[in-house]
């Protein structure tokens, strides 16, 4: 035991030390160039580990000027490199004699054909550019490097996202490349105020993380807060936006997520237009948006594309489905083991008949069935699609038919679990929290019946009421009540009538939409009021 503790302490010390050392080590690499190609290349070779995809191509142009381009194979467009760097330098210098003194500025101004060129002095910058896919040009006699952006790598095209498919609405989704993603957003919001701010996070991965917002719409405090939280992240690698999410969320130990994510540019753009900020991470199509409120999970972008009556009905349906998905097994167990008097007599008789001869208590029955359902779901998700289908068929057969006819499980329980399962798929954003709540409520119901369920729901409500996401109360349009936000909660009011943004989200609460509806001209004048629940 003591030995173990000692080990832990030693390990922690070492971790601390190593954390201190690393920045120093980096600083050593941040040397200046000498101005001699051989030495400079040596410097670079020292900075970047020997690797088979690092290409250093030395050549001579003009009057015996030695030069070299350095790039990473696979991250650059090789055609373009030979067309726009090597060709002009080596061809043109043949015929037209160069002036006596050739410096980097001349090369840049007169010789190269490419658009984005930068001059960098520090080795560190150059290295990081090379690693990001840029091409560096070093030249004898210049203590600087030209960084030419000729990035080009194989990417997945803009495809329809797998997670959020729609019947009506744009089909494009974000992809893994940050630039493409920002361009998708820029194409949706052609506004000079749209702003992207990039920070680099991850001591080893140097991942670009980009905060996107509309400058005079998003609250400055919100942007400050996001930056503060992003800067506090200390991690060696960011591989997906989930990493960021878990570091910046308000309540890391809550079952509810206080950061929402989406794969669809139109959804993210809509949220930014309400005053939210988006966080794009290089390497993943999932874009985070903050702040998130609970009802956001029930809003789908398609609600706004279809007409309000049907959209409202679907909204309500989602709320009901969510309730069913967390409550149905618990209610069934509570009713059938504690409150049989609440079941109508004929139903009770058929339930009792179905339960006759079932060897397990209802609670165990429900737990086993739900567990099996979760396993089935997990198996179906991870497997290749054809096999996944086989799994679900086998599972459905086993649960639905065999278990009942063998008398192991009552038929009503199968129905309840099936209804639960189907309902749980309607709210993808709350699947995780919903699953946990379902099991907790089920246990409470099995132990204490309706009282247990109510106590569980109370605890959940209290917890949700105490949550905040970047200063916004998690249950926002409901409590504290907000009329303009409420129009977009249980129902989706007609777009014309939603003249205001939800309270507390944006600096400017009036939607620009109201200008487009002539019948609403006599609407009250724009009123900018700061809400008491913000910050």
């Amino acid at each position: 035991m003591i030995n173990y503790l000692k080990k832990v302490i030693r390990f922690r010390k070492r971790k601390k030390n190593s954390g201190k050392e690393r920045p120093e080590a980096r600083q050593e690499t941040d040397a200046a160039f000498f101005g001699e190609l051989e030495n400079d290349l040596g410097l670079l070779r020292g900075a970047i580990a020997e690797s088979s995809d690092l290409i250093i191509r030395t050549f001579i142009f003009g009057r015996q000027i030695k030069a070299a381009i350095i790039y990473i194979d696979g991250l650059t467009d090789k055609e373009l490199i030979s067309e726009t760097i090597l060709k002009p330098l080596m061809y043109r210098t043949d015929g037209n004699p160069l002036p006596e003194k050739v410096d980097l500025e001349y090369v840049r101004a007169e010789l190269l054909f490419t658009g984005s060129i930068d001059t960098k002095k520090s080795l560190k910058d150059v290295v990081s550019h090379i690693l990001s896919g840029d091409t560096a040009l070093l030249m004898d006699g210049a203590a600087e490097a030209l960084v030419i952006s000729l990035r080009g790598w194989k990417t997945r095209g803009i495809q329809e996202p797998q997670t959020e498919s729609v019947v009506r609405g744009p089909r494009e989704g974000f992809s893994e490349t940050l630039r493409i993603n920002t361009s998708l957003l820029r194409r949706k919001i052609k506004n000079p105020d749209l702003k992207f701010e990039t920070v680099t996070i991850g001591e080893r991965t140097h991942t670009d993380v980009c905060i996107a917002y509309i400058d005079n719409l998003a609250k400055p405090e919100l942007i400050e807060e996001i930056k503060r939280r992003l800067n506090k992240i200390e991690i060696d690698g960011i591989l997906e936006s989930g990493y960021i999410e878990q570091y910046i969320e308000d309540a890391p130990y809550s079952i509810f997520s206080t950061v929402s994510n989406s794969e669809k540019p139109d959804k993210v753009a809509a949220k930014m237009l309400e005053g939210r900020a988006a966080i794009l991470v290089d390497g993943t199509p999932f874009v985070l948006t903050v702040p998130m409120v609970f009802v956001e999970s029930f809003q789908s972008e398609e609600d706004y594309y279809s007409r309000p009556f049907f959209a409202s009905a679907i909204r309500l349906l989602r709320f009901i489905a969510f309730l069913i998905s967390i409550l149905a097994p618990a209610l069934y167990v509570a009713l059938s083991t504690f409150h049989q008097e609440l079941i109508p007599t004929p139903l009770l008789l058929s339930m009792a008949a179905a339960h006759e001869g079932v060897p397990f208590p209802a609670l165990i029955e429900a737990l086993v069935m739900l567990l099996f359902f979760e396993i089935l779901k997990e198996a179906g998700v991870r497997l290749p699609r054809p096999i996944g289908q086989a799994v679900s068929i086998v599972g459905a057969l086993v649960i639905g038919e065999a278990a009942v006819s063998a008398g192991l499980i009552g038929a009503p329980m199968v129905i309840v679990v099936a209804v639960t399962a189907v309902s749980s798929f309607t709210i993808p954003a709350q699947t995780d929290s919903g699953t946990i709540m379902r099991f907790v409520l089920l246990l409470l119901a099995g132990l204490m019946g309706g009282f247990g369920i109510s106590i569980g729901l109370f605890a959940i409500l209290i917890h949700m009421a105490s949550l905040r996401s970047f200063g916004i109360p998690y249950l926002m349009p409901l409590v504290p009540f907000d009329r303009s936000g409420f129009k977009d909660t249980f129902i989706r009011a007609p777009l014309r009538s939603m003249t205001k943004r939800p309270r507390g989200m944006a600096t400017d609460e009036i939607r620009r939409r109201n200008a487009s509806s002539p019948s609403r001209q006599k609407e009250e004048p724009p009123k900018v009021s700061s809400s008491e629940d913000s910050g």
Partner: protein
Amino acid sequence: MKTGSRMMKTVQCFVMIVCLCGCMNSRELNELGIVMGVGIDKGDESGTVRITAQVVKAGEIASTGKNSGGIGGKAYVNFTDTGNTVFSAVRDITTQSSRKLYFPHNQVLILGRSAAEDGVTKYLDFFMRDPETRLNVYILVADGSAEDALATDPQLEKIPASAISKLVEGEAKSTSQAMAVELKDFKDSLMVKTNAPVAPIVEISDDGEKKTAKINGTAVFKGDKMVGALDKTEGRGLLWVLGKVEGGIIETTSSQGNPVSLEIVRAKGKFSPELVDGKVKITITISEEGNIGEEAGTENLTALPEVAFLEKQKGEVIKNEVTAAIKKAQELHADIFGFGESIHHKYPEEWKAMKDQWDELFSEIEVEVKVEAKLRLSGRISAPAVPK
């Protein structure tokens, strides 16, 4: 990190509490003996009570389906036991039954004739007090013993108790000759001193092979003791006054003396008391609407004079029924209509003096019956199908 550790501790505490106090009251469905009907009889020894509880066999209920191996098995069991009180008898049944009796789904409460005449308060208290029992069970009086009534053989239902409860409902809806009385209504009348509770009577007819139950007549209580019964006509008379007639047939004759059946579609009835020179006068107003249901003769009933005649006849029948009921009630000195309460509501001051001698006052009360009976529809044909 701080909030996190606190969360974890809270969760730990919660789990501990739940485990400490959980699992107290749960009963699986297959541990319940669902009681569908209860019969109360006077025990053989004086002061004892004999309880019959009809418990469903859930497995048999579902046996209509594919595996109907156990056909012929009854879907119910009757447990009978005697005790000094209802509750002790109920608890004694547990010694015979493998499952705990479960009362919330009880459909009917049948009082044996002897028990009803003995005074029912002591038998019913358990059913009003216990949290498991409900007040919306039908209360009936058996012609003989309640035990026999629960042992009848229903033709369409699987369980006698639910058959009887459906009989009661059907009786109230389609013939209106006996009132469907729930325990709560019974309790309502019991709690008012001058009111006399009523309950339908269930009769057991035995043709040697099969015993069947049918509703026949209404038992009249005085205080909590059964003192007499109304027959079917008088029973409908009571319902006319209370405005509870929902359907039924009025048999009368046409102007030529052929029998005609008139269907009751809707009816209203109310009464209001009046004090004239210190004497009570009750005015009962009944309005009824109906259709021609059937005729046995050949004349055209849709002729207007004939309609007027039939309406008059009908009013006469209704009036006779009401008068018969009142006469019977006055004979029994039982205020089954609640005339006393209506005087209490209208003349609270005078009532204080009348309250104690209401029994005598009631039997010589003057009643005026006003009936307005209408015929609305003739049915699908006008004149009967006879050659002209």
